């Protein structure tokens, strides 16, 4: 672990050179190759390889402990892999970048538990996550342009919180918080969205609307959705990846995956 951390630090200096414009000439937005992560001997990810195409909506399922959240941690820079490579487009090596750099490069993440800024208003939540120059010097003197205000108003409408713009975000219902976090992601204008259990705790109606939203986002953005709610997955999924014990067990359409004997075994336990 420590030697890995050291190499990550040494290469920090090069990260700015390596990053840059997202290059998707081969139609692929994210490559994971042979990723392994272990925590105190427990292999959370075991030679995981995965490819997300540009504009794709990919659903990732798997039993508890299959490594779904760890995979997101690796992509977003929260966890450094022991082995393997993560490429964003053809050129950007995510394993050498910090969380903030990865986010600026165009990867947005929604956490399992909604994390918003509870003490800020809904409007401020969107303002802070908006794509902008996020260096200290700039935020000291920045003010919102009318185009930016419009963008925030548009997102407010999309997430149906336009009546709550000046409300403190901590007062929102659970489902509204989930939507606010999705809105915050969209304000970042990410190329790739990672959504960890986005409909947990939502009412049926909210779940349905969320599904419609994701389907409408696909194409413009690439989405990776981790979910336990199989009914929800069935509605939105085109391609599904099943994770098990830290690696890919099966991949394909809903029917393909459902009829895969390995998947049946894992889920039903023979």
């Amino acid at each position, binding site marked *: 672990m420590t030697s890995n951390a050291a190499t990550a630090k040494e290469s920090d200096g090069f990260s700015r050179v390596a990053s840059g414009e997202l290059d998707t000439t081969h139609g692929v937005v994210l490559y994971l190759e042979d990723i392994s992560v272990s925590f105190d001997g427990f292999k959370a990810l075991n030679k995981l390889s995965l490819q997300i195409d540009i504009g794709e909506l990919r659903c990732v399922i798997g039993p508890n402990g299959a490594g779904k959240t760890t995979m997101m941690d690796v992509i977003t820079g929260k966890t450094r892999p022991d082995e393997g490579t993560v490429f964003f487009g053809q050129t950007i090596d995510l394993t050498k970048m910090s969380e903030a750099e990865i*986010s600026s490069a165009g990867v947005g993440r929604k956490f399992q538990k909604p994390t918003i800024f509870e003490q*800020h208003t809904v409007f401020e939540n969107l303002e*802070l996550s908006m794509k902008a120059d996020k260096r200290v010097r700039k935020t000291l003197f*920045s003010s919102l342009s009318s185009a930016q205000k419009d963008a925030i108003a548009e997102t407010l409408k999309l997430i149906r919180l336009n009546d709550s713009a000046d409300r403190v975000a901590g007062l929102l219902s659970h489902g509204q918080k989930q939507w606010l976090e999705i809105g915050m992601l969209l304000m*970042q204008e990410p190329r790739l969205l990672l959504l960890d259990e986005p409909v947990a705790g939502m009412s049926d109606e909210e779940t349905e609307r969320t599904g419609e939203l994701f389907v409408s986002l696909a194409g413009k953005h690439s989405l990776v959705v981790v979910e336990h709610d199989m009914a929800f997955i069935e509605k939105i999924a085109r391609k599904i990846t099943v994770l098990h014990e830290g690696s890919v067990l099966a991949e394909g359409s809903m029917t393909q995956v459902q009829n895969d004997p390995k998947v049946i075994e894992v889920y039903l336990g023979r």
Partner: protein
Amino acid sequence: MNSVTGGLSRRLYGPRGWAILALCGIAIFVVMPLLNLAVPAESPFHVSAYWVTLFGKIMCYAIVAVALDLVWGYAGILSLGHGLFFALGGYAFGMYLMRQIGSDGQYRQPMPDFMVFLDWKEFPWQWWNSDSFWWCAMLVIVVPGLLAFVFGYFAFRSRVKGVYLSIITQALTFAAMLLFFRNATGFGGNNGFTDFRRILDIPIATPQTRMALFAFTGATLIATLLLARWLTTSRFGRVLAAIRDAEQRVMFCGYDTVHYKLFVWTLSAVICGIAGALYVPQVGIINPGEMSPANSIEIAIWVAVGGRGTLIGPILGAGLVNGAKSFFTQAFPEYWLYALGLIFILVTLFLPQGVMGLLKKKQ
């Protein structure tokens, strides 16, 4: 241009806030000087030197409280070592004040008494150029700022936070205190600096100089408050508060939180250094006791009593706690620490938002 400044003033405070601030300004720059300098000493309206110094001292503390509120109340970084930055500013300016004594010390030598006593023949390197006001004024800013920057860089980059950071800052100020207790460090050992005679070649103990220092401290306090208010109402301030509440989300929004914390941390230390430099000529002494861990904890108590994240609250807290301290240490000197502990417990239990929370509830 007019509308821009109008927007800014509206952003900082409402009409009532500006009115209160103007009243405070009048009290500091007009009423106090009149009552102290123009009203004869026999008059019941005369304000004595004791009160001028006490209020001046409390205003220095209030500046420190605002500085701590910036990092604790807004960025969620609880420092229990801010007394160190205050003391460093005090020592930096104290060097200049020591040089201003000239040959009027006990030993009638051109060097400070403690150096003569230690039989030093020349100034150690730390004292280079210390007879220059501007050099020492620069040190007041650079020394605390640099220490805070280096410490903060390593602490924030290694993601040290919460109680661990608090403990390290305590250790830092304690270590510095031990260092400054040593004569070899070159700052007068446990006696520190005292017996100042002049500042800018003007006698320091006259009522006019005292009042000038008082007014300058008042101006610094108001400027600090407005600067802090400007920072915390900007997008930068909203990012800080977001770091306090959900740092990871802020990172995933694309902000490099280390830079944000480092900026506000260093600024806070610089403000403390300036407060220390204003404190020393008014109180007339600086010694390593200012670096004691208890001192830094007391600063946190001022902020907690006044109300975190309110800027005005810490000023009130510094005033209330130090007012109570002045009263207690004269009336019942042996009970002050008990009273302080009791205040802290009561505020934590019943007034989590401090005095400001109470005032807000009343409204």
